[in-house]
């Protein structure tokens, strides 16, 4: 890829498909929504809607994915019929042992389910920090909030995960 040029569709799919899918799955919490999100990201990549800036390709894709995810969340909120509080996919797994046993006993599916139970804004911050591995200032820029807000969302997100996984 020439530096400074937006990557082509094929480059993204071939070299970053797994990364993009992983981020989409961690954000949405299920395969159906993850595929829809990937489709939306690829559409934005293809249309050149998202301005590519030379740098980390994964950071760029994460930004598009997170924005598309949060756009979708806001759209769904405007249609309250679809916001089913009893959605079984959102059910949080059963309680487990103490903090000390947390890391040993939590299966990835349980962690993913707990992640899916976080408020979308917290989830986005936690995924960008702990799945993508971005520094706070980049997350703040992506989400268009102050760094202090990012720090607070990440910490509260982790506290909620802990409560769910090891009450």
């Amino acid at each position, binding site marked *: 890829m020439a530096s400074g040029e937006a990557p082509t*569709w*094929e480059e993204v*799919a071939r070299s970053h*498909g*797994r*990364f993009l*899918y*992983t981020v989409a*799955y*961690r954000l949405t919490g299920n*395969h159906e929504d*993850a*595929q829809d999100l*990937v*489709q939306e990201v*690829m559409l934005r990549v293809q249309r050149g809607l998202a301005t590519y800036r030379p740098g980390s390709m994964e950071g760029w894709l994460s930004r598009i994915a997170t924005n598309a995810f949060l756009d979708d969340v806001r759209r769904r909120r405007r249609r309250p019929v679809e916001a089913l509080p009893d959605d079984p996919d959102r059910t949080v797994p059963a309680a487990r042992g103490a*903090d*000390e046993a*947390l*890391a040993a006993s*939590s299966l*990835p599916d349980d*962690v*993913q389910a707990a*992640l899916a139970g976080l408020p979308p804004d917290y989830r986005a911050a*936690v*995924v960008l*920090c*702990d*799945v993508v591995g971005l*520094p*706070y200032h980049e997350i703040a820029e992506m989400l268009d909030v102050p760094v202090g807000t990012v*720090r*607070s969302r*990440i*910490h*509260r997100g*982790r*506290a909620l*995960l*802990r409560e769910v*996984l*090891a009450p």
Partner: protein
Amino acid sequence: VTHLGDALSALLDGELTPAEARAAEAHLGACEPCRHELAATSAARSLVRGLPVVDPPFGVFERLRRPAWRRGVAAVTGGAAAAVLLLVLTTPPADPVEPPVRALVERHAASASAGGDPVTELVSVGVPVAPEP
């Protein structure tokens, strides 16, 4: 005593300045609740960081990638179909034909009664009304 709160996450993520980090460490040395919260926060952080990469289900990207010409055709035919549908939906139904029957009848009745002789009325259309002498 002010506890560290979200500075604990910042500490774990390396987001504190060296001075802030030293102050946080000093506080942790003296504060059992903060030490406990640090351990719990660290465990939650590790769990998310330890989540595996997720393989996309087979064909996810391939399904999105159709030949450009086919997308073009789909866009054109889809556009044409949408235009036709829009035309159908937005064209108002034609007004039903309503001949002014009542007005015609009344006009006819008025002229007929005024003339008093329905037969002479027919002169204008060239019908002989009287026998030739």
